[in-house]
């Protein structure tokens, strides 16, 4: 099963698309969480449970949006490509590896696209849950979540750097600067 999926990914060269979606939507998720946590940070004290609910709601919405949008757009693209290929080889490709790829690759890409923002969001929300569970943190729960968001965005930049062959630190710093600008804007408008 796993070998077959790997073959379909290889056949359609979909691994690059999946990687791109993972970073793009993961970045969306992390930045949304940063915006939310910064918004709560700049307002008067809000209960951690309220922050968790708001963040979880946003994360689920982002995840469902990512899942649905990627599936709809990818399946349309794959269907179009399959039809063009069928015209080129003058045959029906429904029951071939290309037909299976047209059916399964959009599902896999949708899963990657849907789960990457959820994964990032859950990671950023971890300090909030730890605090709720009574575990002592070096900073307040919200501050820890903000630091985690910065770290997550930096790591996404590092990952991008490794993919593009750029120096990882520069690439990581670039996404960190974007995060700092976002946080600055939220703070500025929140006051």
């Amino acid at each position: 099963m796993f070998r077959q999926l790997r073959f379909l990914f290889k056949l359609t060269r979909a691994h690059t698309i999946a990687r791109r979606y993972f970073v793009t939507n993961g970045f969306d998720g992390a930045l949304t969480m940063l915006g939310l946590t910064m918004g709560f940070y700049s307002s008067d004290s809000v209960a951690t449970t309220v922050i968790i609910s708001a963040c979880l709601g946003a994360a689920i919405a982002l995840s469902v949006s990512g899942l649905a949008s990627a599936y709809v757009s990818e399946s349309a693209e794959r269907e179009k490509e399959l039809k063009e290929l069928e015209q080129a080889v003058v045959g029906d490709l429904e029951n071939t590896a290309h037909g299976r790829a047209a059916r399964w690759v959009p599902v896999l890409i949708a899963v990657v696209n849907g789960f990457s923002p959820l994964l990032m969001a859950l990671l950023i929300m971890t300090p909030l849950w730890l605090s709720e569970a009574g575990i002592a943190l070096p900073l307040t729960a919200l501050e820890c979540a903000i630091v985690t968001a910065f770290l997550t965005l930096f790591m996404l930049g590092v990952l991008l750097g490794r993919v593009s062959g750029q120096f990882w630190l520069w690439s990581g710093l670039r996404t960190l600067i974007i995060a700092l600008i976002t946080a600055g804007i939220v703070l500025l408008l929140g006051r």
Partner: protein
Amino acid sequence: MSLIKRVVLDVLKPHQPNALEFAGVIADRHSGCRVKVTVTEVDEKTETTVVTIESSNIPYEAIVETITGLGASIHSIDEVEVSSTPQPQA
């Protein structure tokens, strides 16, 4: 009964899987087969190839299934080498 020792096929296939992967899948699925793929023409979405398969006994129908399963179509059988099975001694 005859045994197929060598078959040369004119195959039109999509660019993916590429010639290396294409030959690899055929060889993987039919152990004992030696597969050679020569790309003779490249178009926008397809490539024309000459697929040469050699084995002590080529499972031709299964090979056709594998090739078509990869999205390719066999245009013609260009060359075959068949031998008869030795008759058991009385």
